[in-house]
């Protein structure tokens, strides 16, 4: 039943935008239709149900953590809330991300989509944007949840509330990057392997500082070059870890946020281009 609904949605969307005859901007509209469809699909798959778990977690933390943390409940709530945001987001990015394309192929709904004038790149980017929209809703609701928990434990306005939002933005950028990575792997690999590879990218991305240290400590020039190359080529996710400073009321400098945003956008563009390249050569027979 769900598969049928999905087929209908995708076909409906493509037909609608085929009819719209928007010329040059038609590509954008087609991608947005696929994105909205991917978002609807995520909602139907109950992806946003993780918010319930998140709310329960924060509620429990707000009530009980004061007893355990020696008066540090505000810091713990920010750490816990933002870490849960990253963790839940990572799971969504990985497990939903790797299934975005695979499910369409598995259920053969991809044939219905490509029987319409939809490019493979448009399809891929549309799917990507749809999941990014899901993640955006997720992090926004979670950000509001953390703010409400802070209001509750402080008994009114808390100066930490505005300082968490730049960290939320950085988490979202990290999740966008991870989603792109998941999509890239899923464009040529099985979901299980893609999930594993994406998770490893997440791990390595947070170890990037160590890669640099490793490169410096290497004796041979070749190994030094290799690790330095890895440091620069792999996504540097450590730049997006601003949870701990946010819990101390620190915000990143505007220049830093701008630079990391730009880096994320460039990196996403590169990954999506690579994914499109691989996906457009893929034979579905």
């Amino acid at each position, binding site marked *: 039943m769900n598969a049928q609904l999905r087929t209908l949605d995708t076909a409906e969307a493509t037909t609608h935008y085929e009819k719209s005859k928007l010329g040059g901007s038609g590509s954008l509209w087609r991608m947005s239709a696929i994105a909205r469809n991917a978002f609807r699909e995520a909602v139907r798959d109950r992806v946003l149900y993780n918010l319930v778990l998140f709310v329960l977690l924060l509620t429990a933390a707000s009530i009980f953590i004061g007893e355990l943390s020696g008066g*540090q409940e505000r*810091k713990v709530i*920010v750490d816990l809330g933002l*870490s849960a945001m990253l963790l839940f987001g990572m799971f969504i990015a990985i497990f939903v991300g790797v299934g975005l394309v695979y499910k369409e192929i598995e259920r053969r709904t991809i044939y219905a989509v490509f029987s319409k004038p939809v490019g493979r790149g448009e399809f891929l980017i549309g799917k990507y944007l749809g999941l990014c929209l899901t993640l955006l809703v997720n992090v926004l609701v979670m950000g509001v949840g953390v703010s409400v928990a802070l209001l509750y434990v402080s008994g009114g306005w808390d100066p930490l509330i505005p300082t968490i939002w730049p960290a939320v933005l950085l988490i979202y950028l990290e999740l966008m990057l991870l989603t792109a990575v998941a999509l890239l792997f899923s464009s040529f690999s099985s979901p299980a392997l893609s999930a594993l590879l994406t998770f490893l990218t997440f791990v390595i991305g947070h*170890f990037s500082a160590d890669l640099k240290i490793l490169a410096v400590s290497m004796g041979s020039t070749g190994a030094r070059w290799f690790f330095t190359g890895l440091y620069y080529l792999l996504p540097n996710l*450590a730049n997006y*870890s601003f*949870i*701990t400073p946010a819990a*101390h009321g620190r915000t990143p400098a505007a220049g830093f946020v701008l630079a990391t945003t730009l880096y994320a956008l460039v990196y996403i563009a590169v990954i999506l281009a690579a994914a499109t390249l691989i996906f457009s050569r893929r034979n579905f027979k």
Partner: protein
Amino acid sequence: MNEERLKSITLGLVVVVGLAGAALMVRSIDALRPPVDPNAIDESLYLNEKTARRISLGFNGLAADWYWMRSLQYVGKKIGNYEGDIRLDDLTNLNLKLLVPLLETATTLDPEFIEPYEYAAVVLQAIDVQQAIRLTEKGVNANPNAWRLCHHLGYIYWRQGQYQLASETYGRGAQIPGAPAWMEAMKAKLLSEGGSRSTAREIYTRMYEQSSDEQVREMARMHLLQLDSLDQRDGLRKLLGAYQARTGKCPESWRELEQAFRTLRIPLDQSGAPLDPSGAPYVLKAGACEVELDPKLTKIPLK
């Protein structure tokens, strides 16, 4: 009843009865196990602080919180198991060998987390003063704007009787932008009258005012009560001395000094005995002209 239904009921019964049996077996095994001294055994940390930081993958703040809470639970559990009087700033009898690695890990994971340093300064100074100094110094270096940590480092030196070092540390803290004026005053006070009661009062008052940790505040409050009590006992001894000089003997009961108590403004109980700051009556050592805290009733630290 059909066979399928009977099978379901049997399986259900096996689950319920089996679980109940397993629970009962656990109880009996627990009873058979020889009791262990909770203070004698300590699990060790699986990870050292550097590895913990490396594998925290951006969740280092949360991991630091976890280690911090674990430190509190660890100390709390030890205090709970200890039979006898215990003070936060003198936990030498508790064998807190995991406290240093726990606080070390918490502060390595989140170097800006002030409370573990503060806790180390207060709790560790009696157990392992070198570690207390090292951890607090680590905090001062990682948080150059946290004058509060200089206050705590100065406190450790003061407890050790190193008034020169304590004074220098307060002076260092006073240079930090935003440090209160009393830090500079403490620098001078420690140099001129490091071991005095008024210096102790000043230090504990500031600790009580500045600390966000309830246990540290309570410890400071108890010390302030102890200082109040020391002042009261000095006053009472003067009264007892004056009574002895006047009558040639020591009073047999507090009633004999009732008039004189009014000048000291010490609250009295129904029997006329003066009350210490925790509300317990002082004990008069009849015949010796000496006053003491009641070890059974008072909440004030005896030493």
